[in-house]
């Protein structure tokens, strides 16, 4: 696994092809770190010259903004923009739909203009350009259902890139009854990830896991580290962790290629 930072490239007087925005979950959360590493393996395999900000990266401010703290969000945004613009970053890829949405939509009016990709879009491009192949061996014939992350799907209308990648794995893609624009949230968005839910009769991730289990899947695929946590917890709640796996699409692609 080769990971270089923007500072490394800068010292060499070079500019990488793309900046990989790892995000806070992808940097610190044990489960999400596996997604980060799977994606890095894919980038390495496709010989993509990418860099991370490393210790110069800071929270995009998405969670703070959605919790209502516009001050903190804009402070974070302006700090990050200063770093990104300092390195003359043009192109960003991230595995986190929340970072994707914030960088793509909310940074421009504060002075940060970048071309931003979700990792499923980026991998799709790599395949279309002939830089990456999927040599599927292990997943053929498995039943997979895809849970649309709100900030990728409804928020930015990216529905096809993740599905295209899943179909390329030669698996049986089964849609949940609520999918694409009508998909149900996993319960983590809007800063819910960081607080206890309000009083109700069920947790949202339990309801969404029910949707997923109705398709009788071998694997629940996601494209968001927070959705991954919520769905994994839902599967544990149902005591199905021996039968149903929750995986990010990057992990599935890396696995299919024995990376």
């Amino acid at each position, binding site marked *: *696994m080769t*990971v270089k930072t923007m500072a490394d490239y800068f010292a060499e007087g070079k500019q990488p092809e793309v900046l990989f925005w*790892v995000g*806070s979950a*992808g*940097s*610190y*959360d044990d489960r999400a*770190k596996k997604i*980060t*590493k799977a994606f890095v393996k894919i980038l390495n395999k496709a010989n993509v010259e990418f860099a991370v900000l*490393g*210790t110069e*990266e*800071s*929270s995009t401010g998405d*969670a*703070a903004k*959605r*919790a*209502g*703290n*516009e*001050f*903190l969000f*804009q*402070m*974070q*945004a*302006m700090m990050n923009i200063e770093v990104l613009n300092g390195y003359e970053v043009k192109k960003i890829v991230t595995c986190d739909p929340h970072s994707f*949405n914030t960088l*793509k*939509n*909310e940074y421009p*009016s*504060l002075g940060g203009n970048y071309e931003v990709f979700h990792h499923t879009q980026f991998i799709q491009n790599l395949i279309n350009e002939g830089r990456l192949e999927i040599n599927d061996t292990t997943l053929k014939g498995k039943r997979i259902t895809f849970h649309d992350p*709100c900030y990728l799907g*409804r*928020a*930015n*209308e990216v529905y096809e890139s993740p599905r295209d990648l899943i179909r390329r794995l030669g698996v049986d893609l089964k849609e949940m009854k609520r999918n694409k624009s*009508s998909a149900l*949230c996993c*319960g983590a*968005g*809007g800063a*819910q*990830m*960081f*607080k*206890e*839910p*309000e*009083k*109700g009769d*069920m*947790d*949202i991730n339990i*309801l*969404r896991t029910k949707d997923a289990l109705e398709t009788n899947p071998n694997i629940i695929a996601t494209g968001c580290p927070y959705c991954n946590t919520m769905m994994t917890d839902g599967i544990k709640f149902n005591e199905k962790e021996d039968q149903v796996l929750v995986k990010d699409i990057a992990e599935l692609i890396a696995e299919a290629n024995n990376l």
Partner: protein
Amino acid sequence: MEYLPNIIFALALFAGIGFFVNNIKKLSRNIKLGKDVDRNDNKSERFKNMAKIALGQSKMVKRPLSGFLHIIVYVGFIIINIEVLEIVLDGLLGTHRLFQPILGEAFYGFLIGTFEILAVLVLLAVIVFWLRRNVSNIKRFLSAEMKGWAKNDGNYILYFEVVLMTLFLTMNATDTSFQEAGVGNVLSQYLVPLFDGFSAETIHTIERTAWWIHILGILVFLNYLYYSKHLHILLAFPNTYFANLKPKGQFNNLASVTNEVKLMMDPDADPYAMPEEGAEETTPDKFGASDVTDLNWVQLLNAYTCTECGRCTSSCPANLTGKKLSPRKIMMDTRDRLEEVGRNIDANKGEFKDDGKQLLNDYITPEELWACTSCNACVEECPVNIDPLSIIMDMRRYLVMEESAAPQELNMMMTNVENNGAMWQYSQQDRLNWAKED
């Protein structure tokens, strides 16, 4: 005396339209209490949205049964209005079926025949709607906010339509010369036997009575709109036109905050700077919204446009799992409070007198606001592009930035972001540790 009916008709029409215009003025005044927001860009896309979503009902049919029935009532409503034009002219001029000779017997017959078929279809659709609201256990019609006036309002509208359609058919069935001509009475002819044995005079009286009640009913209905959820038949058009065109995930960046943050981050800024000589003393903006006047006018237009169908609430993950949040209630509360503020202004000679109430707490509780996952399901579902999420976000901003009233765990999360640039308590120096682990 010969012109007495014409005069009475003209007076009724004048009063009906006069009251309506007055209501519309009040409505417009209330909407303008909202803050400014620019929604005049991309005119062609806006027109396209209005044509597709309001005129073309494209989002209604996502739920096929109610969408299909709604289109029947909607088409019926629009097309039967052509007949209302004739009725108004007949009433003013003292003529009878003015368009018949102008349009020619065959074409006029075709039109009226179409209206009759539509009228019966509307009746059938309205019956199904009534059953759905009152007999079937459809969850979105049974929510807490749908008790009392909200429930009655929905039913009154249906009764109105039944009465109007029945009067229209009765009026045609008892119009002897129209029935004798036998063109266009495709369905009303089957009602004629009901009036067998009545004298010609009685039948004429019934026809006149039905005619009068029908048009007076329409004028009353027109004025009922302002007090009802039924305003959507008018406001769906401007509402879809002025709706947000940006990606749903993009929340606005508060400009008032940007100014302060820039000043804070500017190394050359003088922290002890005095305001420049002659500079206007401006009271700083309130951050976020605690009352309707802190919202923008599109959000207020949204509130008046909402017809309380509840598709938003039935797709809300928080509501589906038993939390108090209901996006429909957010819209209904906003409208109720706005109406209250409007009445306050009317009662105090054009000026709002503090009534010790506001949208936050008195209508919408923090518990509702904090249950939102910002997933945009409600925004996606709304058949007329209402955005309840933007109101929830503006109110959260008030809670956090003006009152520091976030839930404790969120305060901890925000402190972490402030101190170490992550939502958890990890050092920024450890951000790249994953690359060294295996």
